[in-house]
Every structure is written in structure tokens, then in C-alpha cells.
């Protein structure tokens, strides 16, 4: 049976040969997840919509350079989306971000820990990551999630958690080190 990664790799190959129907299928399958990723970092629908369009244009143009060896298609597309969002965010002044979505972020971050265990059909890799995250200190876990999912800088994470920036940096760094050895690769 074809895995979802294999199916998506095949779609990317078809995109590489100019098949726009394949891009449409990829879009239908992954745009809602990527839109959520972009919204979370950009906090504004107009920016996230524009970024989503750019992300899929990148996927279309770069499809021929995708190789399964570099990770799953979804990991690849998520990286394109996150990096684009980080670039956009950096180019904007801080006052262009409304604070509206911030509470939602923190609620979700808190809720995820308990919510996740109940998610059916979670892949083995996702479960392993979650188990490893649970072995970190709660502060390390939270700092990593805020940086990765929220797109916050060390400084912003420090502001939100209310700890000095040096402390945040070491939480993130040690947390990531521990994650790597826990995941064992």
C-alpha cells in the first residue's frame, strides 16, 4: 500500500513536470494545515493568505528539487511555510501585529499537552516527539513550542514567559539537545 508520503512525493513529481492538477490535489490535502501554521506566526489573515499563495508557488517551482532523502513532503512544505512566515514577520514592525491571537496561542499550547495523547491515528514519529517533549522540563517544552509554533524570538519568548532572555536561550538550547538524544538520530 502506498503511504501518504509516497503519494505526496508522486504528486510533487507530477508538479515538477508541470501538472497543475497535482498541485491542486496537494493544495486540497495540505493547505488548511499550512494556513494554520502561517496564521499562528503571522497573526493576520491577509498576511497569511498572501503567504499561503507564495508557499504554493514555491512548492510548484521547487517540486523538481524535492528528494525523499531530505524528509517527508509535509515536513518540506511546512518548512517552506514557516520560513516564509518568519521572513514576513521580520520585515514588519512589531506594532503591525495585533495581540488578539496571542491568548489563543497560549491556550492551545497549554491544551496540546493533554489533547495530543487522545488524538487517534497520530503517527509513531509524532508520538515519539511528544514523549520526548514530555521528558523536558515544562519550561524547556514551553519555550520550544513558543519559538517553533508561535514564531517568537528569544526576546519575545522571554517577554511572554517573564524570564530573562539568557535563561530562555539556555532552555531552548538544552531542550533541543535533550530532544535530539531522546529521539536518537
Amino acid at each position, binding site marked *: 500500500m502506498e503511504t501518504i508520503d509516497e503519494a505526496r512525493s508522486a504528486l510533487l513529481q507530477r508538479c515538477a513536470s508541470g501538472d497543475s492538477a497535482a498541485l*491542486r490535489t496537494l493544495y486540497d490535502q495540505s493547505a488548511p494545515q499550512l*494556513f494554520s*501554521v502561517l496564521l499562528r506566526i503571522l497573526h493576520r489573515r491577509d498576511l497569511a493568505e498572501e503567504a499561503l*499563495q507564495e508557499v504554493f508557488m514555491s512548492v*510548484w517551482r521547487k517540486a523538481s528539487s524535492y528528494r525523499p532523502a531530505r524528509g*517527508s513532503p509535509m515536513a518540506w512544505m511546512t518548512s517552506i511555510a514557516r520560513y516564509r512566515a518568519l521572513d514576513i514577520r521580520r520585515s514588519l514592525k512589531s506594532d503591525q501585529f495585533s495581540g488578539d491571537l496571542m491568548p489563543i496561542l497560549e491556550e492551545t499550547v497549554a491544551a496540546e499537552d493533554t*489533547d495530543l495523547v487522545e488524538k487517534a491515528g497520530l503517527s509513531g514519529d509524532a508520538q515519539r516527539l511528544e514523549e520526548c517533549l514530555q521528558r523536558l522540563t515544562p519550561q524547556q517544552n514551553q519555550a520550544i513550542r513558543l519559538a517553533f509554533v508561535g514564531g517568537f524570538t528569544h526576546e519575545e519568548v522571554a517577554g511572554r514567559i517573564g524570564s530573562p532572555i539568557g535563561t530562555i536561550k539556555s532552555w*531552548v538550547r538544552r531542550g533541543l539537545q535533550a530532544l*535530539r538524544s531522546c529521539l536518537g*538520530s
Partner: protein
Amino acid sequence: MRYDNAELNERLAADYVIGTMRGAARRRFEDIMAGHIPLRRAVHRWEQRLFWLSMQLPPVQPPPEVWARIERQIAPPGSVMPVAVPSRLWQALAAGIAAVALVLGTLLVSRAPEVQVQVKVEKQAIESAHTAIVADNTAPIWVVNAYPDTAELRVQAVRSVPLADNQSFELWMLPDSGAAPVSLGLLPRVGSAVLTVSAEQLRILAATSKLAVSIEPAGGSPTGAPTGPIPYSAPLLHTAPV
């Protein structure tokens, strides 16, 4: 900064992927990563480890206008039928030239007046280890990219040049050692082709700085060496250390 230390690579890659590396440091890291395979692999591993965090977010349906705009960009209205081929050409050309543009700037692009493509260099797109553009005096004819990871040579005919029906274009490596030319296969007259290359061919490719194209009887040289005229040659650029 040192980029030959595995532990440091891991840390920098993690900092890049999680997004806390910002500003000029981020740009600099992207530049270095483009030509640094261990660093790029470390980044890919971190992306693969952490992207599950993003998958935990609840999906949000984007408005239909977003797809409509994407569709317009990849297939401008009024040219729905013929657009498939040009867009494919454009895309392959952009991907192929991007690698070279990094090294040669806009030189080759400006040599291609017929094509008039503004190539945006996207370093992430560069995954091929060896690349060549075979051109005549006016414009590129073939873009050649080698991918050792998958043992593939991808060749795109950017435009077609005249050739008798009973003849083929054959692509050759001219090894730096001065050894006899080694065939890489037949070049497509139009469109693109994926040629499979052996480990031995890849080894020779890594020690080759020049490719040549010969005109052979249809189906390729009967002797294993070029038998006809050699109208084109091109420098082979090694874009990533392997």
C-alpha cells in the same frame, strides 16, 4: 565561524529550524548552507523531527481566492491549453539556471535573449551536485543537472536545434584525467529526459569539468566513443562538494 564541527552544526541547524536565528545571521547561514552538505542535512533532520509540532495545530480552511490566485499565476487565463509546455520549460530552466546563476551571476541569462527569464536565485532549490548549460553562441539549448542521491541526470531541452531524423545528440563526459570520453546517454530533442547514471559514471562525473555533445547515428554511437562531429561543449560546474 566554524562550520566543520558536527556538534556546532547541529546547534546552528536547530537554531535555524526552530526560527530563533534571525536577521543577518539567518541570511548568512542560508548562504553557507547552500554549499555545505552536512549543514543542510542537519537542517533537514531537524525539520523532520520538529514539523510534527506544526501538525498539531487545528487546520483552518483558507478562502477560495487563494487557490484562484495560485491558479492564475501558474496558468494565465486565455492560454489554458498551450501553457503546460511553456510553464514546464520555464520551471526547468529556472531550476537549472538557478544553480549556475549562483556561480556565474547573470552572465548566462543575459546570453539568452530569446528566453528573457528573470531568474530568481533560490538557494534551497539547488540540490543537484553537478550542473551544466549547453549553449551555442546565442542561447542555451540544454540544461543538465546531476543528482547523485538518486543516480539521475535530468536534462531539459530549452529549445530545439536542427538535426536529421536519422541522427541523435549524445552527451559525453570529457574526464579531467584526459581519459577517453564517457557517454552519459542521448539528449532529448524537445522536452526533458531523466537519464539513469551508474556509480561509476557518477565517480567520473565528479572528476570532469567539461561535457560535450556529438552527433551520432539514431540511437547513439555504435562504438562507445564519439563518431560524429562535436558541435557543442559546456563547462560542468560542481555546485556541492560530494
